């Protein structure tokens, strides 16, 4: 952890996720507790099936845990599978997502993909358009704003996805293997981008990754195996 004195962005307390029941019961995540501060970039490592994505979807308020608590910005959001707020609205205002595949909406241009996130949050089209262009410029794809996702390279698509994740000034950015579809050079660029965003915009960033070549950009590294999480050795 880079600075334990900073504001807590995410706190999980004994998160457990169990799929199925009886003979088919699978414990995907067991008693996972973690704290991430604003401005901190965290890598989550581990083999396939270790529970990384399960953890990410629980923290991302997409797939509720079976038990345990999720607090974001000090607010209790989920306790077990019981939401304590409107999760969709909360996601929109506080969380940003980046995935393995860029996951842009295919019928919207790069700028519109960023703009829609802000308009859904209540920004006027004019404001949203201006900020979307600003974000694309910041991420180095400002000249591709009117292009459809299908006309962008994988790296450009990921940058647009990062821009969308940043659109509403989220306190938390969650990325699930964002460099898996990129070459090592572009993968490194994206990882450095997350670090830049975390430090400049004071967002907590959790990145699930298999890519060990860019681990030096992370402030903290966790490893997961068989649903258990532990702090990784530097």
């Amino acid at each position, binding site marked *: 952890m880079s600075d334990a004195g900073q504001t807590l962005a995410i706190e999980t307390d004994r998160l457990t996720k169990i799929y199925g029941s009886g003979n088919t019961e699978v414990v995907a995540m067991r008693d996972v507790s973690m704290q991430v501060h604003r401005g901190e970039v965290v890598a989550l490592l581990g083999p396939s099936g270790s529970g990384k*994505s399960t953890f990410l*979807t629980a923290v991302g308020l*997409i*797939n509720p845990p079976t038990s345990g608590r999720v607090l974001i910005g000090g607010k209790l959001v989920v306790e077990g599978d019981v939401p304590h707020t409107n999760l*969709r*609205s*909360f*996601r*929109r*205002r506080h969380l940003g*997502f980046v*995935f393995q595949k860029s*996951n842009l*909406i*295919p*019928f*919207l241009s790069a700028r*519109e993909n960023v*703009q*829609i*996130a802000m*308009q*859904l*949050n209540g920004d006027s*089209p004019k404001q949203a358009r201006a900020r979307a262009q600003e974000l694309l410029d910041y991420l180095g794809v400002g000249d591709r704003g009117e292009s*459809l996702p299908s006309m962008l390279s994988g790296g450009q698509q990921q940058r647009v996805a990062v821009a*969308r994740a940043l659109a509403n000034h989220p306190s938390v950015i969650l990325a*699930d293997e964002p460099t898996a579809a990129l070459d090592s050079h572009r993968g490194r660029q994206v990882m450095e981008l997350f670090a830049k965003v975390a430090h400049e915009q004071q967002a907590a960033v959790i990145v699930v990754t298999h890519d060990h070549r860019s681990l030096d950009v992370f402030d903290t590294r966790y490893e997961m195996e068989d649903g258990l999480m532990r702090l990784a050795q530097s």
Partner: protein
Amino acid sequence: MNLALKDIRYSFGRFALTTLGVGMLLMVVMGMGGIYRGVIEDATLLIDRVDADLWIVQRDTRGPFAEVSRVPPSLVHRATAVPGVASAREFVYHTIQRERNGKPLRIAVMGLSWPTDKGDWIALTGGRALRQNHFEMIANESLGLPVGHRIKLGQETYTVVGTTNNMIGSSGDGMAFVTVRDAQAIQFDVPGEAVRLERAARESRARRFDLVAQQPMLLANTQRPGGELPAVARPGLSAVMVSLKPDADADVVADIIGGWGDVSVYTSDGQRELLLKGTVEKIKRQIGLFRVLLTVIAAIIMALILYTMTLDKIHSIALLKLIGAPNTVILSLILQQALLLGAFGFAIAYLVGQKVFPMFPRRVLVTQPDLIQLAAIVLGISILSSVLGIWKALRISPNEALS
């Protein structure tokens, strides 16, 4: 940002083809409604156009349209003498089928009561009304008989002196107007051989009477035309049409004429009802039910199309949910596309129908109230058929964006 329009623009070709398909389907629904309306209009057109207040027909029949009616020609004069009657006209109406250029030509022949009725009430598209009491004809355009065309019917040749349109019999055949006498001549045309046989039969029957033995000259009468024989009645009429004076009470006049033992009397509304509830009732119901069936099928097809369109967007919808889009945004996306599909489909149906319907052999009458009704139905279908897509969209988990 209008997501529905953005998505349509992105996959415009597919949306255009789908809309075209829906439009064609709606055109069939619209056409069925038009055929239904055309059947009703054609059936009652003649009653409306001839503008008679009362119809006098054979006693206890529902003639002259719903069933055969025969009344004597003298009934015209009896009716004219009734207080309150302005005029009475003979009504002769029958359908004939001839062959022309190797194709069947069906003509609904109506007799005009010369000289009081020369067809001036018929809206002509060319030529003129009748000017002589024989061998002239006004023909509906659908018969394909232009002004100046000559056609042989029965023993005589008739010249088309005027054309009209939208004058269709209840069976959908184009109408031709000639004088009553000509209409009867066409209807009761008898081949020469049949005339000769009839004369021989008359002579044979006459020889059995003592009177002929005493006055052999009477036998000469048997060779005269049937219409000239004093003992043979003139051919009957189908009905007599009565026009009332402006101040006359139709019920009173109808009561007087209805009191005669040999006839029944109907108002124009009564005739219209007899037609609609009799002659065209089954075809009307058949087309009506088929139209309902087509509407249901259109609704099912539209629902499936919208459901498929939603399935194609599952990933985008999941993504929208993941980034926090409220359900109203997703609902609006699907509903707007459903409404656009319905609206464009309706417009295509109307525009293509305007070009296609006139080519149909029977009239396809698309009226404004029917268009408004169909538009409302399409609106309802669009909303209802989007329910399946909306149901699917609301069940999509944001998790699907990650897969």
